[in-house]
């Protein structure tokens, strides 16, 4: 375990040190103290390391993550795990707006609530939120899964492409071209796997699934396997 104190050693030192870790690094565990809402903590990582951030973070924590597993023991500011490719980011508190935006892969787990625009333009990331999500979530979401154990705000999935949205609670309103769809056995199985990955105890049968009506964009059934 290596500890980095952002107040003492600085954000630049933190990110340079973490970004220098290679896939075969022996330094697997990193403990970050005094985040104090700083921006861009643990961004651009590309190694299978475990990073624990002890406190709340500002903009873009865990942005562009690959491989690393980052846990925020607090709340996250706007754009947490933005454009993540792989690995896992866990927020133990709440996440501010556009959590997981444009994410291409990996898993984002939010144990509290997520604010507006959660999963906006997501491109393959899986996002699991224990609480509620705000308005305009999954706007233009292209691929991946957004799982919400609580309620969703206004205009869920507006202008949606092929991302799958699973919501257990109420949905205030659906956005343009977003409709409720059947939950098949395959979906329940997939949802069970997502909930297990996020270490969340919920019955997949209680969720409703929402997806694109495919009226707004040019959907070609020949490309269905791409999603």
């Amino acid at each position: 375990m290596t500890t980095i104190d952002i107040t003492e050693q600085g954000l630049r030192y933190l990110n340079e040190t973490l970004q220098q870790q290679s896939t075969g690094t022996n330094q697997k565990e990193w403990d970050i103290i005094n985040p104090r809402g700083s921006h861009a903590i643990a961004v651009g990582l590309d190694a299978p390391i475990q990073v624990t951030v002890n406190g709340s973070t500002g903009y873009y924590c865990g942005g562009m993550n690959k491989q690393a597993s980052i846990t925020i023991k607090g709340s996250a500011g706007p754009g947490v795990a933005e454009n993540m490719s792989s690995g896992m980011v866990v927020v133990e508190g709440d996440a501010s707006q556009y959590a997981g935006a444009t994410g291409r892969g990996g898993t984002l787990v939010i144990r509290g609530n997520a604010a507006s625009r959660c999963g906006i333009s997501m491109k393959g990331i899986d996002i699991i939120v224990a609480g509620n999500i705000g308005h305009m979530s999954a706007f233009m979401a292209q691929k991946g899964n957004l799982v919400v154990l609580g309620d969703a705000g206004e205009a869920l999935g507006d202008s949606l492409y092929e991302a799958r949205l699973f919501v257990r609670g109420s949905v205030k309103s659906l956005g343009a071209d977003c409709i409720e769809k059947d939950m098949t056995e395959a979906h329940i199985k997939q949802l069970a796997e997502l909930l297990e990955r996020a270490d969340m105890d919920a019955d997949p049968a209680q969720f409703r699934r929402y997806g694109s009506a495919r009226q707004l964009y040019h959907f070609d059934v020949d490309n269905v396997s791409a999603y």
Partner: protein
Amino acid sequence: MCGIVGLFLKDDALKPQLGEMLSAMLITMTDRGPDSAGIAIYGDETAGQTKITVQSGTPDSDFPALEKHIQDQTHLAKDKLSFTMRDTHAVIVAAETDKDHILTLIINNHPNIRVMSQGQSIEIYKEVGLPKNVVERFALTQATGSHGIGHTRMATESAVTTLGAHPFSTGSDQCLVHNGSLSNHNMMRRKLRAEGVNIQTENDSEVAAAYLSARMSEGETLGEALTSGLNDLDGFFTFVVGTKTGFGVLRDPIACKPAVMAETDAYVAFGSEYRALVNLPDIDQARVWEPEPAEVYFWSH
């Protein structure tokens, strides 16, 4: 961008530290807007007395002339009138009954002097420059009071001038700071001016302040005025608004502009970012949350 901070004290024991806490919060937000900065402080009030904060670009010549003019023109004993100069600002404390007289005297005879605020409790200090410099120039760390609001500006809708800096005060003991930009401020300014409302600048945020003051002068509470604002003000906004007894927060329904709040038994605090709140007492035990879009929040003493 722009950065907003606000602090509403529930525990009177913290009153002597209001200026220090609020100044530190504002300086933390410097990189959200380095153009200009300002703070409104709600300090102690004395029954029957009024406070007028004025500003001048040439204070050394303007303020002594104004002080003499006020002494000559009002019937108040000299010891009841105080005129405290702080850099480009001065705070005049006078009898409530002389308030309108003094305001008219300033407006009619001292064109270089601008009224920043008036009321029983409010004082506003704002200037072009970094929050750190503004705090130093006006010794804001020494300010005491029950609540206060600060703003650091990245100008969009009007020029970088002292008058374009926040907070804006358009009513007695009222002020507003704004992060965002209004899209219907020109039409709203014309409408309000037609109703007889005095608006000094071409700034969009002043229109929001004037709008709320106008609604409140018609009898609405701050909470009701903010609710009306959701229908009438178009654009992006996070507002923090102060009155003599209270402190309100409103975000537009799209809520692009960031906002974080924290509450303990001792205070309610607002920050554009969590960074602004990290040095507050017992912040680790505070309830910290992001205010909901289009929801009016209000605390009052």
